[in-house]
């Protein structure tokens, strides 16, 4: 069989499809198309929600830092956390901007490349968040205990205890990567745990890079 014969079969199938389907008039009468949800809208909602949370965090940390401007032992941890939150906001805002400017009425290769780059940016941002989070543990402990309970953790805990927590935070990173690489693929696909494990282990990043490379190969001549 040649491709031309397949074309003839395909045309025959088209006629069949035409005759065997009809639009659901009732659904269209009831469906508010303007409010119809799409995966892009859901994605944008997720990023917007994160942005709002991070902006609240920046504001609160800024307020705390200003309140403790004369106390470097509190000001510095708050500033570190604030910078971390600002970096997350910048990453989120860039993704949201990219997402809002997406128009599916563009050539397929261009749109798919943009979507893959967006996916890469998202994965990298999540990886950074997950991998840097353990390092933020000690500054968070210092700020939160002061802010929420009025406790000066420097006075309440020994420097050795704080140093041990910082080292623990550092140790968690390679441990999380090793666990995600060894056991992550055994988790059920589509679950949040599997998603996290794939991100930490770098499997999501590799898959996204492979997909982007496949799109580039497709667009290349010959």
């Amino acid at each position: 069989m040649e491709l031309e014969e397949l074309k003839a079969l395909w045309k025959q199938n088209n006629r069949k499809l035409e005759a065997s389907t009809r639009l659901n008039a009732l659904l269209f009468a009831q469906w508010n198309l303007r409010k119809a949800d799409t995966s892009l809208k859901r994605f944008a909602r997720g990023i917007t929600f994160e942005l709002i949370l991070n902006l609240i965090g920046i504001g609160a940390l800024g307020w705390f830092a200003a309140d403790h401007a004369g106390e470097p032992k509190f000001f510095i941890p708050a500033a570190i956390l604030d910078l971390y939150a600002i970096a997350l906001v910048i990453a989120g805002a860039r993704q949201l901007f990219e997402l809002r400017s997406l128009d599916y009425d563009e050539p397929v290769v261009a749109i798919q490349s943009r979507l893959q780059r967006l996916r890469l940016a998202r994965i990298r941002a999540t990886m950074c968040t997950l991998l840097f989070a353990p390092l933020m543990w000690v500054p968070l402990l210092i700020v939160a205990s002061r802010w929420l309970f009025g406790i000066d953790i420097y006075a309440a805990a020994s420097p050795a205890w704080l140093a041990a927590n910082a080292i623990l935070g550092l140790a968690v990173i390679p441990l999380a990567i090793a666990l995600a690489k060894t056991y992550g693929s055994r988790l059920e696909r589509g679950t949040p745990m599997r998603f996290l494990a794939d991100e930490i282990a770098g499997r999501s990043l590799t898959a996204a890079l492979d997909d982007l490379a496949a799109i580039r190969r497709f667009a290349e001549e010959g």
Partner: protein
Amino acid sequence: MRTDDAQAAFVDRLDRHRRILVKVAGAYCRDEADREDLIAEIVAQLWRAYGRFEERSAFSTWMYRIAVNVAISFHRTKMRTAKAVEPAEPAILEMLPAPAEALSDDALTLVREIIEGLDELNRALMLLYLDDYSYAEIATILGISETNVATKVGRIKQRLKRDIAAQNEL
């Protein structure tokens, strides 16, 4: 044009080209619930873009481009999550009894197998080729050169010959 009129015009045009929805969804999803979800997603994206449709290309070409873009994204996400879900909405396209002049199951299965054997982008190219779009139109929709389209169609033809020869040997 009032929104209601615009929606009525959109639905009318969509109805005239509804087989594009079925073909694209069928090429990218095996599972019926996924197909229905994908069709709903394509229709929502088409409506979102409809306000910017300027009649510079045929409605069917415009519809194909958006449908393929949505389908590839949907397929990639599904491949990652690999979870079948119940459709959130009732089916947009209702299935009616098949007409007497139905395509034989063997022939249809062969066409489906060939399409499903291709990667997502070549699948789009194949759909457009089978639907008689010219190389120039395929190139515009996909965003690649005409020479590239011709090369890829040539490769698919060769692969088809090889596959059929291999099947005959079995």
